[in-house]
């Protein structure tokens, strides 16, 4: 008798898998019993055969259990259970107030930052999109191949517009010159200085203006369209249609339409009026046929079938055919979708621009959010170890794994939900402040489905990711082991947490270094010697008054003014340039560009430039009307070491160089000073009066005096002045804005990281209470314990610093390359950032570690 023979195991397995689930137990048992019987009666071979045959006959691979248990396991998502989950989650939050505050607060701040950045990016990306023909509008630009690479210009001759309209009617639906200009609009006694455009008739059609009153037609050369805001100020409740307004210099025009103000995120925002170009050109109609005078921006709208690239290729030669400029300029179209984000031209191609900031801030936003999520995950995993016992008890009492998973997930969903609501509140509160900082008018996208989708998608994702570790890992514990205390959560669990801390601090340290360097770059440019004295300089924008000399005498007599001068542009900009200067030994193929500034003789003394060689202008010498003053950059450009006395030919006239001044920073403070030529040229219009206020008088008092004199001479024009130092400061506004935003984000990132560290440290201290107690009993000092507990974190931050340094160096070095005048990245910046991060870490961790180290060992060891 073979008592020990066993049926084939594969058959038993097969039956177990594929037999009917409802009868599995008894069938298996019956077969085993029969097998023993068959072995006794037929022998093992036959028995095996019978057994296998029976098994094969009993397979029911498609059968489903029809078993209905006596007590139904509760439906996981039944309302009662859900309520219970939320209740327990809520109790847990309340019980661990510090953890909850850190968790929710950090996450809310991170979400709020991400939302603000998201709004900002959204706003940037939607720029100009409000124009109905957004995809078909373009500006015509000109590329000039010059000595230092191709330069791009937007000012074009007027007849080009006519030529494009006539010759390429199949491609262009509308072509229009639209030149922006500040004018003083007047109706009866009301006056208003506003920027608007003098344009050809097609411009309002091209923009598809929304008309509130009247029509878009601009064919009548004495008509004018007003923006609603302008109309409201000028006319109030009156009906503006057919009223006559003065559009500056006695150009009377009849209001034929009122259009809705163009939105803030449009390139044409602030266009207060649109008047026919013919109105502006009445005094000099010749400009409309002059191919030599390039000063007009031209806009086009394509027909639906035309493509920008193809049309660009078609029209590229048109300007040269008309102007015969020896530089051989080419034309191309710059689509509206690139205007805002891709406005930097390098070698004639639109490349970077604001789009870089869109990327930069998107990345920062994502990282800040990531930091907050990391906190959330770290804290919930760290804390979950403490809940292993809870899991054990729950299991013993009868929780199914699914219920434990739901329990943990609902906790993290609750935290994320609270954080989300809080972050909405934060965004709502800080939006006006953020708008001010970013110079925008953003609003919450309450009605944008994408916003809600992103918000909910993200919240759910964070909740699931952060909740997944406790939910899936802890719920798998065997209750017996947990309750015995056998489960040791080992190193492997701490490793990802440490990695996440390193990642957090890498980001934070990079942001700190970045912020320091951005501010240093700004400060570097601010400290740059500008070559003249800005203090007490004001610029008044006015076309020629005619009685300048009398005004000057009057003003000087009041004592409020030290000196004053006229010039073709303010000291903070250069408005005109020339590439047709000829000097001794010039290579005839060179296309050297000079900025040209016409000045009156007192200009130099008023702004306080410093003469390096030769002399400044003098009214007494009549020859000075044909004299040049160069700056150092211009001297370098022409390559003559001592140019004083040289003859320069320009427009068929011979100018003598009488002096050289030190470089004046009039344009971007981040770029090298352009070659400049100053002249006393009476033929050109003087647009600006620059006044040096008497420093012994207060600015307010002096300005009142000056205003009175101005009103006497020119009562129709409002007295509108700008301080040169304030104007100069606006050149930094872009960089300062980035610096401010970056520093705020850096502070928030560091804050969130420290919050996380604080939570982790307190968890560590708590988990090691017993160890600390034993160590104290054995004689460890507080300093010992403090360093024991702080060491781990310091090492992590040290690693983060080592990773962050090269990353920050790489990106900031790239960023600085775009500035010609730039600061150096010095080693101490890294040291300071590193020490700062280290100090913050120690500060954060020490609170917890010292508290743990000071604890009475009796207390910590007594409880068991």
């Amino acid at each position: 008798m073979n008592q020990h023979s066993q049926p084939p195991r594969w058959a038993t397995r097969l039956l177990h898998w594929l037999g009917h689930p409802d009868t599995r137990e008894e069938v298996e048992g019956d077969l085993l019993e029969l097998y023993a019987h068959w072995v006794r009666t037929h022998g093992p071979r036959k028995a095996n055969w019978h057994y296998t045959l029976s098994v094969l006959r009993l397979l029911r691979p498609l059968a489903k259990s029809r078993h209905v248990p006596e007590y139904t396991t509760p439906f996981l998502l039944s309302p009662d259970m859900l309520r219970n989950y939320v209740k327990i989650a809520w109790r847990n939050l309340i019980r661990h107030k510090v953890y909850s505050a850190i968790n929710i607060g950090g996450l809310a701040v991170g979400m709020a930052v991400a939302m603000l950045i998201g709004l900002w990016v959204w706003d940037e990306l939607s720029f100009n999109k409000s124009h109905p023909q957004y995809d078909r509008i373009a500006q015509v630009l000109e590329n000039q191949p010059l000595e230092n690479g191709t330069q791009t210009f937007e000012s074009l001759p007027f007849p080009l517009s006519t030529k494009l309209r006539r010759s390429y009617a199949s491609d262009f639906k509308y072509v229009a010159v639209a030149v922006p200009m500040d004018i003083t609009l007047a109706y009866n006694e009301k006056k208003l200085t506003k920027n608007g455009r003098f344009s050809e008739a097609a411009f309002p059609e091209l923009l598809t203006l929304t008309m509130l009153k009247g029509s878009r037609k601009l064919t009548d050369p004495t008509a004018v369209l007003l923006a609603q805001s302008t109309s409201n100020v000028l006319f109030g409740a009156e009906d503006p249609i057919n009223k006559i307004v003065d559009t500056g210099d006695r150009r009377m025009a009849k209001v034929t339409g009122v259009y809705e103000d163009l939105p803030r995120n449009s390139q044409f925002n602030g266009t207060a009026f649109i008047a026919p170009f013919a109105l502006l050109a009445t005094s000099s109609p010749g400009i409309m046929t002059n191919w030599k005078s390039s000063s007009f921006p031209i806009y086009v709208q394509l027909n639906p079938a035309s493509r920008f690239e193809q049309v660009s290729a078609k029209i590229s030669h048109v300007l040269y055919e008309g102007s015969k400029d020896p530089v051989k300029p080419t034309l191309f179209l710059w689509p509206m979708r690139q205007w805002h984000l891709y406005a930097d031209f390098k070698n004639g191609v639109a490349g970077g621009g604001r789009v870089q900031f869109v990327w930069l801030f998107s990345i920062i936003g994502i990282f800040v959010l990531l930091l907050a999520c990391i906190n959330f995950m770290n804290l919930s995993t760290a804390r979950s170890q403490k809940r292993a016992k809870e899991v054990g008890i729950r299991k013993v009492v009868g929780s199914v794994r699914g219920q434990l998973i739901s329990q943990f997930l609902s906790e993290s969903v609750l935290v994320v939900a609270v954080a989300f609501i809080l972050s909405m509140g934060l965004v709502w509160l800080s939006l006006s402040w953020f708008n001010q900082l970013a110079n925008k008018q953003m609003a919450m996208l309450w009605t944008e489905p994408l916003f809600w989708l992103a918000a909910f998608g993200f919240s759910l994702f964070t909740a699931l990711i952060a909740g997944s570790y406790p939910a899936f890992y802890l719920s798998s514990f065997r209750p017996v082991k947990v309750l015995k205390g056998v489960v040791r959560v080992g190193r492997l669990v701490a490793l990802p947490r440490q990695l996440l801390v390193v990642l957090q601090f890498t980001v934070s340290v990079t942001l700190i270094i970045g912020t320091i360097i951005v501010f240093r770059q700004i400060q570097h440019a601010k400290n740059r010697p500008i070559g003249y004295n800005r203090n007490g300089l004001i610029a008044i924008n006015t076309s020629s008054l005619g009685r300048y000399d009398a005004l000057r005498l009057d003003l000087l007599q009041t004592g409020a003014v030290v000196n004053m001068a006229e010039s073709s542009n303010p000291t903070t900009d250069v408005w005109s340039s020339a590439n047709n200067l000829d000097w001794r030994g010039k290579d005839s193929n060179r296309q050297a560009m000079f900025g040209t500034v016409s000045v009156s003789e007192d200009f130099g003394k008023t702004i306080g430039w410093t003469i390096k060689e030769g002399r400044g202008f003098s009214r007494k010498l009549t020859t000075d009307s044909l004299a040049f003053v160069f700056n150092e950059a211009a001297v370098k450009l022409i390559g003559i070491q001592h140019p004083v006395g040289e003859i320069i030919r320009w427009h068929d006239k011979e100018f003598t160089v009488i002096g050289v001044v030190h470089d004046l920073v009039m344009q971007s403070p981040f770029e090298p000073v352009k070659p400049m030529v100053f002249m006393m040229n009476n033929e050109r219009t003087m647009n600006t009066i620059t006044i040096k206020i008497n420093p012994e008088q207060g600015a307010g008092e002096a300005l009142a005096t000056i205003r009175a004199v101005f009103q006497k001479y020119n009562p129709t024009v409002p007295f509108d002045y700008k301080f040169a130092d304030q104007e100069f400061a606006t050149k930094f506004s872009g960089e300062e804005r980035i610096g401010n935003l970056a520093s705020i984000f850096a502070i928030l990132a560091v804050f969130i990281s420290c919050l996380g560290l604080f939570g982790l440290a307190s968890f560590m201290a708590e988990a090691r209470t017993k160890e600390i107690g034993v160590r104290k009993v054995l004689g460890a000092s507080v300093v010992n314990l403090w360093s024991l507990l702080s060491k781990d974190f310091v090492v992590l931050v040290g690693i983060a610093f080592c990773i962050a340094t090269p990353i920050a160096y790489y990106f900031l070095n790239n960023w600085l390359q775009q500035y010609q005048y730039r600061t150096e990245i010095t080693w101490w910046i890294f040291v300071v950032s590193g020490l700062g991060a280290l100090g913050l870490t120690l500060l954060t961790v020490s609170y917890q570690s010292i508290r743990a180290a000071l604890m009475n060992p009796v207390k910590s060891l007594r409880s068991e």
Partner: protein
Amino acid sequence: MKRAFLGEFEEIVLLTVAVLDEAAYGVTVTQEIEQKTGRAVGFSTVHTTLQRLEEKGYLASQMGGATAERGGRRKRFFTLTATGRKALVDVQQVRTQLWEALPPQTLQLMGY
């Protein structure tokens, strides 16, 4: 009146369960049928039939206690339900009626 329909093998299984009284489960039913009828019935056939009879409501079943010899697996014991008993009685009555209706010469031929 609707009569219960029982197949021949079903009837045998049902009767065997009745015969075995308290001790009817897969193995005993199979062995009992083999012994009593001399037919080599497979366990799978018997098992399937037992399941079907339970579905039809002629049998009820409950699990017994754990036993050592079957690897701790319990047995499922079958008992007749009232419907099951009635079905057997019905079948028996039909047979009796048919037997009684047999003509005497046929009975004689059969040795009665």
